[in-house]
């Protein structure tokens, strides 16, 4: 498709009077702005951010789990925001609050179920092939970040579960020195990690992950005999 060096709007205009054409080359770097713009534009090949076609080998249910994970994350975030509107006692005292709490819990359970299936799907497809290592790694970090976020969520409930889980978990965290800075017995600190810090980190990681997926396209099947010849590709109508 489009080579990554495709000129973009703005760079194709005639050069200003005293400028050498060479400085128009993306990445030639006498303008920080131009460098950033080139990076942004070239990160995902043109048309590939939201393509309306997909490679013919994409034909399996396993591909749906990444999108399902993303959709579940959206539901988790929305229900979490509704809980935040009501405040930290709402879900103990009001039946609507308790229902929203249930929505939040079950969307998290779905989120993890989808994510774990997605993780193993990508593993068995060796989906890190072809420069996709970073996609895999951001996925693993998203998994870790999600575990931390869910964990601080359990500590923020302010009920029996929080009391028990925090007093149990403190020993593990203290044993490796983390507990000195990340105090699971302080629900104020845990709530802030749960509703601000970890969601921001997770959000950034997920955006990176999805951008990387679109940058490289869906990973081709393992062990193909031939590369796809261009004429074949054309004859099959892409």
């Amino acid at each position, binding site marked *: 498709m489009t080579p990554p060096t495709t000129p973009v709007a703005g760079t194709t205009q005639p050069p200003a009077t005293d400028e050498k054409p060479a400085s128009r080359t993306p990445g030639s770097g006498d303008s920080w702005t131009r460098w950033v713009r080139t990076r942004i534009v070239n990160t995902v090949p043109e048309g*590939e951010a939201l393509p*309306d*076609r*997909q*490679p*013919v*080998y994409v*034909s399996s249910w396993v591909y749906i789990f990444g999108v399902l994970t993303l*959709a579940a994350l*959206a*539901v988790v975030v929305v229900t979490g925001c509704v809980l935040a509107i009501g405040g930290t006692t709402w879900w*103990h005292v009001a039946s609507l609050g*308790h*229902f929203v*709490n*249930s929505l939040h*819990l*079950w*969307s998290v359970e*779905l989120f*993890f179920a989808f994510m774990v299936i997605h993780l193993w799907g990508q*593993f*068995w*497809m*060796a989906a*890190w*092939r*072809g*420069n996709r*290592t970073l996609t*895999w790694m951001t996925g693993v*970090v998203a998994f870790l970040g999600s575990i931390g976020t*869910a964990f601080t969520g*359990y500590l923020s409930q302010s009920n*029996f579960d929080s*009391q*028990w889980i925090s*007093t*149990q978990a403190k*020993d*593990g965290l*203290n*044993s*490796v*020195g983390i*507990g000195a800075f990340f*105090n699971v017995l302080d*629900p*104020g600190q845990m709530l802030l990690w749960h509703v601000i810090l970890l969601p921001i980190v997770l959000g950034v990681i997920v955006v990176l992950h999805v951008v990387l997926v679109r940058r490289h396209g*869906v990973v*081709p*099947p*393992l*062990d193909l*005999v*031939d590369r*796809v010849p261009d004429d074949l*590709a054309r004859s099959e*109508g*892409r």
Partner: protein
Amino acid sequence: MGMTATLSRTTSHGGASHGSAQTPDSHDFPTRPYDLVKEFVIALVVVALLTIGLAAAFSSPDEKAVTMTTWAAAAPSDVIATAAGELAGTTTSAGYGPPYNSAADGQKLGPFSLQKWAGVRIPVDSANDLVLAPLRMVPGDSGLTATLATWDAAPADTQTAWATAYVTALAAAPDGDPTKVAKGTYGPVPQIASRFLSLAQSGGLEGALTQSGTFYGSDATRSLLLLADGAFLEDQARARSLGGDQWGMMNETGNYPGQPWMWLYTFWYQVPPFATSDNADAQVWGLMMLLTLALLLAPFIPGVRSLPRLIPIHRLVWRDYYRDHPRQ
């Protein structure tokens, strides 16, 4: 030719992690129309409906937090024993070490004393902070004031001797019942413990511990440490199958899924050598960090990165494509 193909396949295998040369560019393949946005919107609607269905059908657990009042009402002897233990320095928190105090060095991960190196950053003096300070706040009780004065006037050795003797006597008494304790030299400890129980019964203890002199109390470190020093909290948890050796960390009250994604972490605590080790927490954490690193670096680890090729689940995933495009 066959030999060459096999050979080159082996090479490509070795470089599979970063060798884009061997994995064709996905943009070189023929395509068919697909509606990504429609897929996402449908996924969102399906997940939202599933969530609503599950929430309506199964609700969610929200068992009330244990209060000092419930504790005092349900297990008064446990409150007495815990208070005496804090004064004697025999409770978990009193002998914990960092980050709460220097009573111990804490756990080690091989040669690394990470717990000690992190330092005492959340100082808690169990006898003073968890028992005596709340009692000192009680106004207009001259008997209590005199009892505390007796305690304060005694040398540290004597204090510890009194409290230790009382802890031992309580443990020996039938059901740990303070009224059935044998006579002994306990100093003011029995009075302190019993006054502590009545403070807990009155409902005043949480405030005294959590707010510890501030108006907004959002840090429950002290009250949770005290609660965890007693036996009541754990008894409640065990009754709900939440003990540490019952996979407790990943479960929650009621028949709810809890945090099943923690299964591997929780698993190690159930088996030797961790199940019996004094450094179990540090060791399990170390092991999990190592395994996590392995997952992160799976594309680079020989053997691990070859598993998808050796166990050919991918044939199922791409069976339509392989039908017309033979595998190597």
